[in-house]
């Protein structure tokens, strides 16, 4: 199989998988889902590391390093903030401790 076709195959199948895995999400989770997906594309950090680590041009090096900083903010910040949100969803499982108070 032609190499470009292999990549195309992976791409197309990933499109279907991407739609399929989130097709049943409730609107309750839209915000964390968007935030989590956002963190996943922070994986461009890997791309930034690869190009920066193989360049021998000073300008390209600086641009690559900027890309690494930006991508790391995206990836690390994205996963941390998503976890912060989801922590609250988990806490909610416990019964409400304050019901019946006052009145």
């Amino acid at each position, binding site marked *: 199989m032609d190499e470009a076709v292999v*990549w195309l195959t*992976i791409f197309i199948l*990933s499109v279907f*998988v991407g739609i399929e*895995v*989130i097709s049943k*999400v*409730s*609107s309750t*989770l*839209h*915000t*964390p*889902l*968007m935030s*989590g*997906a*956002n963190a*996943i*594309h*922070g*994986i*461009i950090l*890997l*791309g930034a*590391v690869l*190009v*920066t*680590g*193989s360049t021998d*041009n000073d300008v*390209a*090096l600086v641009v*690559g*390093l*900027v890309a*690494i*900083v*930006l991508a*790391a*903010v995206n*990836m690390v*910040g*994205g*996963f*941390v*903030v*998503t*976890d*912060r949100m*989801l922590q*609250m*969803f988990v*806490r*909610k499982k416990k019964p*409400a401790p*304050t019901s019946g*108070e*006052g*009145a």
Partner: protein
Amino acid sequence: MPTWVQLVNLLCAICFVLALKGLSGPRTARAGNLLGAAAAVVAVVLPFIYLDLEHVPLIVAAIAVGSVGGVIGAQKVQMTQMPQMVALFNGVGGGAAALVALVELHEMVPHADAVNWFVLAATAFTIAVGAVSFAGSIVTFAKLQELMTSRPVIFPGLPIVFGASGIAAIVLGVLTVTQPAVWIGIALALLGLLVGVLLVLPVGGADVPIVISLLNAFTGLTVAAGGYVLSNVVLLVAGTLVGASGTYLTLLMAKAMGRSVANILFGALKGGSTLGAGEASDRPVRSAGPEDVAILLGYAERVIIVPGYGLAVAQAQHTLRELVDVLSARGTQVDYAIHPVAGRMPGHMNVLLAEAQVPYEQLVEMDDINGDFKHTDVVLVVGANDVVNPAAKTTPGAPIYGMPILDADEAKQIVFMKRSMRPGFAGIENELLFDPKTTLLFGDAKDSLGKLLNAVKAL
């Protein structure tokens, strides 16, 4: 690339699929996110092991700087500011992708004859769309953070400038393929920035979340294209997953608002959003004090709370929950009606109320509660406006026309807690405020809820 590395990459790609799958269910969401994070860390560490990378100390330092910045931002952000945080993280990701593609173009130029034209096209795509995503997200951030007006910004000739920039970007993209040069790539990036700004400027405040989701999908696709350029399967799969799911999510959200994505992006250009005056009205309304509202609530059998973004801004979720607890103890049946786009983006209100530890069962989604309003004695609208605005049904041409709303107008009594008569995020007046069944309780939501709570306790 050694086979074991390829296999680990495959494993990471699988983890990203499972992460997304996990994120779409409430019980598995947190585990899904952590799995995604673990896979991302492994994928990034790999090249340090199997490749002989140069500039390692600098690279590690840059990763450390970005990570610390990301963690600080993520820890400090208020839950109310979540949409702009997502926009910002998305923007820097898009910017990073564009820069990566620029560096890669620079490396390709000396031996461009040997490079497949499709690789060059993917590089051009990454540069252009990454720049669009970066600039668009920054404008989105500025709108949500209220660094600039959240109303649609339109100037004469905007569609022409937008169209011309788009065509110029395509021409430069073709040039990148036919005669690759770094300066063409840089020009393409600059043009992408312009297109990104022009794309988001005409979008009105209430529609901004849809744009965040769309730009998120854009960034995903640029990362996928970048993965193809760098022949890296992890980037390709992760980027494509985000691109596809993000696009689908955007369509879901647009549907929840009763709008098409094209209408959201370009509606303002047709002059559809000019109805919003953005100013306080001086038409007469009926207002009351906390004691009067306490009597309404205290002797009601059925109460529905409609929480909005204003509630969270006033940090009044906890006081509201106390009030609901007291009312429930008095025998009143109380539920929260959650509009799909309550807050600043879909699902945002659930996050905000979860923070206040409101029990999950009391949150009822729009479709499940809309039939109950006609049997409801009092609807208490706290810091919400657009999601109960009947103009969505009655006024063709209103920016929110066609958006499904909570049918609060069918209840016997409606109480609005508002700071002022300023219109909601969409910038349009709400007829329901002037309805004879409606009572207004002016003041800061937290302050008013505190007084209301004491008054109900005193009944």
